[in-house]
C-alpha cells in the first residue's frame, strides 16, 4: 500500500521506507554509527527530494541512536561526561553547518560539495579503519593476545591544557580534542545529513584512545543531541522534515537498532570494525564513480516558487 508523504509531496510504498529504516537501524545498533551516510543517499535514490532526505534522516538518527544508547546504557557502556563535552562542540558545529548549508545552496554547488566531501571523508576513514582492522585480525589469527587498549603512545594530544578526568573511559585528557571532534561532526551533521558516528567512533578509538566497549554507547549518546538539534533547525529553516516519512523510518530504525545491538554482542571488535570499514569504502567508491563518470543527463532541474 502506498502512503503519501505530505512534506516530500510524493507517495511511496510503506514497506520500502520501513525496510530502509530497519536496515540502516540494524547497522546503527551493530556498529555504533548513525547510518545517515547510507540512509540519505538511499532516500534520494528512491526519489525523496534531497532537502527532505537530509532533514528527515536527522530525526531517524535521533531515534536509532536513542534506542541504541539505551541498550548500551544498561550494559554500562556510556561515558556520559565525555558525551556531554563532545555535545558542547557539536551544538556549535550544527549552527555553523546550517549556515554553510544555506551558503552552498545559494552557490548551486551543493550536490558536488556533498559528494566530494563524502568521498574524501569516507575514503580516508575507511582506508585507515580497514588497514587497522585487518592488522588486528591477522594478529588475532596468529594467536597473539588481544589488547584491550591500543598501544599507549604519547600523542601531541596529551600535551594540551584543560585536562579532565573521565572515569568511565579511564582517561585523563584535555577537553579540547573532544570539543573539536564534536564541532567537526556537528557541522557535517547539518550539511550532509549524517550523525557522524563513522567519524566519532574512529576518532574516539584512535585519537582519544577510549576503550572500545564504551565507544559505541558514548558515540550514540552524543549523536542523539546533535541530530535532535539538526532536526529542529532543519524544520525551522527549511520546512523539510517529513513527519510521516520520519515515523516509518524511525519505527523500522528503532527495531533494526535493537537487533543490531544484540548481533553486536555476538561479534568481535575487529570483525565489527572490518564491517564498518567495508561499508564506508563501498559508499565512497560509489560516490567517486558517480563524480568521475559521465552523467546520464548533463542537465539537472530545480523548481522554485512561481
Amino acid at each position, binding site marked *: *500500500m*502506498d*502512503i*503519501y508523504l*505530505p*512534506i516530500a*509531496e*510524493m*507517495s511511496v510504498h510503506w514497506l520500502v521506507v520501513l525496510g530502509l529504516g530497519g536496515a540502516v537501524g540494524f547497522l546503527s545498533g551493530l556498529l555504533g554509527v548513525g547510518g545517515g551516510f547510507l540512509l540519505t543517499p538511499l532516500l534520494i535514490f528512491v526519489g525523496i527530494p534531497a532537502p527532505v532526505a537530509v532533514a528527515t534522516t536527522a*530525526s*531517524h538518527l*535521533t*531515534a*536509532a*541512536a*536513542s*534506542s*541504541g544508547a*539505551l*541498550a548500551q546504557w*544498561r550494559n554500562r557502556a556510556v561515558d556520559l561526561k565525555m558525551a556531554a563535552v563532545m555535545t558542547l562542540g557539536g551544538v556549535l558545529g550544527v549552527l555553523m553547518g546550517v549556515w554553510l548549508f544555506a551558503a552552498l545552496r545559494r552557490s*548551486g*554547488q551543493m*550536490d*558536488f560539495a556533498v559528494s566530494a566531501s563524502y568521498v574524501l571523508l569516507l575514503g580516508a576513514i575507511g582506508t585507515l579503519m580497514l588497514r587497522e582492522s585487518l592488522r588486528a585480525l591477522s594478529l588475532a589469527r596468529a594467536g597473539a593476545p588481544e589488547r584491550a587498549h591500543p598501544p599507549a603512545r604519547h600523542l601531541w594530544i596529551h600535551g594540551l591544557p584543560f585536562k579532565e578526568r573521565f572515569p568511565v573511559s579511564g582517561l585523563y585528557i584535555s577537553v579540547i580534542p573532544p570539543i573539536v571532534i564534536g564541532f567537526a561532526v556537528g557541522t557535517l551533521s547539518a550539511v550532509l545529513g549524517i550523525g557522524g558516528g563513522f567519524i566519532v567512533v574512529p576518532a574516539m578509538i584512535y585519537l582519544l584512545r577510549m576503550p572500545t566497549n564504551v565507544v559505541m554507547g558514548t558515540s550514540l549518546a552524543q549523536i*542523539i543531541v546533535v541530530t*535532535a538539534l539538526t*532536526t*529542529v*533547525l532543519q*524544520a*525551522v529553516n527549511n*520546512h523539510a*522534515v517529513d*513527519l*510521516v516519512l*520520519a*515515523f516509518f523510518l*524511525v*519505527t523500522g530504525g*528503532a*527495531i533494526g*537498532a*535493537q537487533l543490531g545491538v*544484540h548481533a553486536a554482542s555476538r561479534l568481535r571488535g575487529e570483525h565489527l570494525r572490518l564491517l564498518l570499514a567495508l561499508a564506508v569504502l563501498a559508499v565512497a567508491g560509489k560516490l567517486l564513480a558517480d*563524480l*568521475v*563518470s*559521465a*552523467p546520464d*543527463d*548533463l*542537465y*539537472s*532541474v*530545480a*523548481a*522554485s*516558487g*512561481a
Partner: protein
Amino acid sequence: MSRLALAAFLLALAPSPAVCSENLVSGLSQDTIQITSSYAGAEIVVFGAIERPQPRRPDIVVVVRGPSADMRVRRKARMAGVWINRNRVVLRGMPTYYFAAANAPLERIAPRTVLEQYGLGLAALMPRSTMGRHDPEPFRKALIRHQRRAGLYLQEDGAVRFLSGTLFRVRVPLPASAPRGRYLVEVYMLREGRVIDARSSWLSIDRTGLERRLYDFAELDPLPYGLCAVLMALALGWLSSLAFRRME
C-alpha cells in the same frame, strides 16, 4: 460519479436553434482532487461536445497546465576529472505539470506558428522569459526531458477519443508528485489549422485531513513541529528498547 456527471452533461445538450457556426462545450469528471494519506495520484476525464456540428469533424486539442514556477536548469561540465554544475539558465513561468492531447498528431492539426501561439504540445511549450548567458534552447529541451521522465509533462497525440460524431473525451493522468494548486484545463477546437473555439476550466489539487494538518503545522509552526519530530523519535527509540528488553 464521473459517469453520472457525463450523463447530466449530455442531458444539458439539448439541441438549440441552428446558428451558422459550430461551438464547443466541455467539462471535467471532477474539479477538486483531495490528497489523503493513501493518495497515489489521480486521473480525471475531460469531456466535451461539439454543438451544431458541420459535416466534417473538427480537431480537438486538450491542454492541462499545473501552477507555474521558475525552473533552474543546470548543465554539468567536466573539470579536473569530475563532473560539476557549470552553466545555469532560469526558465521563468514554466508549468510544473503539463498535459497535451489531441485526436491526431499535433503537427497535422495546425502549423507551428499556431501551436506556438496557444502553447499546444511540448515542442511549443515556451518559458515566459529566461535568465542566463547561454542559449536557452538546450536547457528548455533538458527540462522537458526531465519532466517527462518524472511523468509530469505528457503529450499524447491521438488520446482524445470521439465517442460519437460530436462527443469526445480524454483521460488525464495526474501522478502523486504533481504539485498542489490550481490547474488550468483548456479545450481547443480547430478547423483547417485555425482555432475556432476554446473553453477553459479550473481543477484544484489540495491536501485534506491529516495530510493538510501536518503540512500546515510544518509551515506555520516550524519550531513546535521540529520539537514534535524529536519527541516522536525519542519516544519510539525508548519504546523499542523497552520492548526488546521485555523479550529477553
